[in-house]
């Protein structure tokens, strides 16, 4: 089975995000970048499928700046076989140009399965995976929390409001991974050493401009500080009062 995993380099969820001087991008000074956490599930699932089948190939594809090679190396260290970086210094917010470049790369690759994270934690757009599926004319199941592949068919479970939706599909297909699909492995020292020697192809990506313009970025409004209404049993009535009349949650 040949599996492609599309991954993105994103700011660490722990990073302190500041809006850049132009108000339209984030200031990347001192910001640590990581493999998008949802993409980690996708990489792990691909590796598990390959290990389960006893054979196969896992190809990691990313669009981004040169530094995204490091992100690809992380996936290679986890166990992926080869990497492709479609180099673009600036990747805009519009998912469509990104999806077009990826679809062109994947089209003739002979992939049985294309895996994505359900979203990137930097722009939360959820868009690229399903768009690539559409462009390739493949079935797509998004936000998958459980996946089984046997022969040429797959069964995926999606966690929906109040229940689980079970979807069956034929290969090739596009899957986007949700949290809980698996537990991503840590790269071992040996894996990291080996990853440095695995093939990583770098090509220039011709990204179209896209139809979305960023007007303004602003940090969320600061939350009001909490208040301690009292201590001990006497505080219970004050707390109930505050919850009922101020917070209006009771």
């Amino acid at each position, binding site marked *: 089975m040949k599996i492609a995993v599309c991954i993105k380099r994103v700011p660490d969820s722990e990073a302190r995000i500041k809006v850049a001087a132009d108000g339209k991008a984030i200031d990347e000074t001192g910001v640590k970048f990581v493999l998008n956490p949802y993409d980690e599930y996708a990489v792990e699932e691909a590796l598990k499928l390959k290990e389960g089948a006893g054979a196969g190939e896992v190809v990691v594809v990313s669009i981004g700046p040169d530094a995204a090679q490091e992100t690809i190396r992380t996936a290679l260290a986890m166990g992926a076989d080869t990497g492709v970086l479609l180099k673009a210094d600036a990747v805009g917010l519009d998912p469509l140009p990104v999806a077009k470049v990826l679809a062109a790369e994947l089209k003739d690759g002979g992939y049985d399965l294309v895996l994505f994270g359900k979203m990137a934690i930097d722009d939360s757009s959820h868009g690229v995976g399903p768009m690539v599926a559409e462009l390739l004319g493949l079935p797509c199941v998004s936000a998958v929390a459980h996946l089984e592949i046997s022969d040429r068919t797959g069964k995926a479970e999606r966690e929906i409001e109040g229940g689980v939706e079970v979807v069956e599909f034929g290969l090739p297909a596009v899957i986007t991974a949700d949290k809980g699909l698996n537990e991503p492995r840590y790269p071992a020292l*040996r894996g990291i*050493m080996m990853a440095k020697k695995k093939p990583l192809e770098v090509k220039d990506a011709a990204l179209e401009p896209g139809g979305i313009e960023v007007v303004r970025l602003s940090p969320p409004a600061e939350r009001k500080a909490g208040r301690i209404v009292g201590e001990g049993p006497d505080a219970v009535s004050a707390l109930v009062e505050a919850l009922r009349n101020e917070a209006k949650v009771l």
Partner: protein
Amino acid sequence: MAGPLIPAEHQPHLPRERLILTEAPAEERIDMDVVFVGAGPAGLAGAIHLAQLVQRDNESGDGIGEVVIGVLEKAASLGEHSLSGAVVNPRAFRELFPGSSDEDFPFGGPVARESLYWLSERRARRLPTPPSMRNHGNYVASICEIVRWLGEKAQELGVDVLPGFPAGALLTDGERVLGVRTVATGLGREGEQLSGYLPPADVVAKVTALAEGTRGMLSLAYQEWQGIGSENPQIYALGVKELWELKRPLDRVIHTMGWPLPNDVFGGSFMYPLEPTVAALGLVVGLDYPDRTFDVHDRLQRMKAHPLFREYLEGGELVEWGAKTIPEGGYYALPERLSGDGVVMLGDSAGFVDVPSLKGVHYAMQSGMFAARAIFEALKADDTSRARLATYDRLVAESYIRDDLYRTRNVRPAFTGGFFKGAIRAGLATLTRGRFPGGRIDMEPDATASRRPGAVPRVPYDGRLTYSKVDAVFKSGNATRDTIPSHVIAGENLPPEVAEFYAHMCPAGVYEVSDGKLVVNAPNCVDCKATDVVGPRWTPREGGAGPQYKRM
């Protein structure tokens, strides 16, 4: 406890049996030619210079061939466990990157102006800057940025830089160091394997370069195992540092002495502009302080209320907080040898810090570069024995590292027993370029310095200017999981006074006292190693645990 407290009486032994292994390396081992333990300025400069020497040799034809150079680092990402003031002397950078100019290096700005003050609680009296503290030609810098930059340079040269993998023990055979065993990841509180478990890995190398930083456990264990002594014991200071975004720009480097430290405590503060409105602020205190309730973190919090600092900090924002010990013993505390069979010790692990000028980064880098030269010659000769690697000792002994530390050999020791007497003795030692007082001033280990009871001043933490230890640890970026096994070894049935002494010393709230008993909150630890000097032992824990400094 009626009498004085002697910390050494309650301190567990160094767990040498855990740190020096004699069993054969595992079959599934990773082979390298040279492994550097610690991606700080010493380890990275060493790895870079070694890679340069290899490259040059191979370019000249009939070269040495491929040399696998690895750098193990316990932080999850480069620089996250590195903390320094820092005003950096660019000398070692210039030597390591001969084609570059100072603008290419990861520095903030050059030191344009500097002021030294004597503080009282409300006033600041300007003092003349002593020659040793003059910083003209030096640069304000963040060691985190330096380390990240050096890491990129190392990788460009083909060095395997491996963050997230702490070395937990030396692999040995006879007198020879064979390599290191990394620490397992994903253990639970009782040592059970959790779902993300990664077993330890054995890294075998022809030379192991110990560049662990301050109070490196493998370096300490190696010295104890081999009986490597020094004329004076190594002594340490604890520095607590904060990074602030300022409302008002700071245009100079500030150092202070005096308040909030009592006269019988050695130390001082610093405030450096990394950018005009981003400043590093810290307080550094010798761990031989005589008062068992003394608390460096709390003193730093009080210090910020001083008008000198307050005018910059008020309305600003605390961005980061951290702590680290500094080896302060100087010349007489250097190990009598720096190399052995298959091993060398670099940087802070060896004690290359000059206290009067408050410098260590360039000595660390330079020591790494000297080690690289010795290692390269040893690899070329296919002989990594102690005799061959002793070239490193010779290069250090003939260098400015030795000269600078020798010149100031008695300055820090002069301060034992009080600031004013110390200042006079240190002044004479400086004026005579080290000849006063003749010979060597004896030092005792910090752990045997007697501690008397003291008052516990309350510090109001307001969350704007002053921060509790819990808030401070949050600002260190420490996100260590709560289920990690405790990595500190504390004595048992400790008297409450001893527990309180640890609780006050530890800036990160690892130790608390509850009903007179010691409570250990191990995940809080930011690896400063302060209490390891006088009390509970620090041991290496899983990769990525501890702080995540960004610009310290």
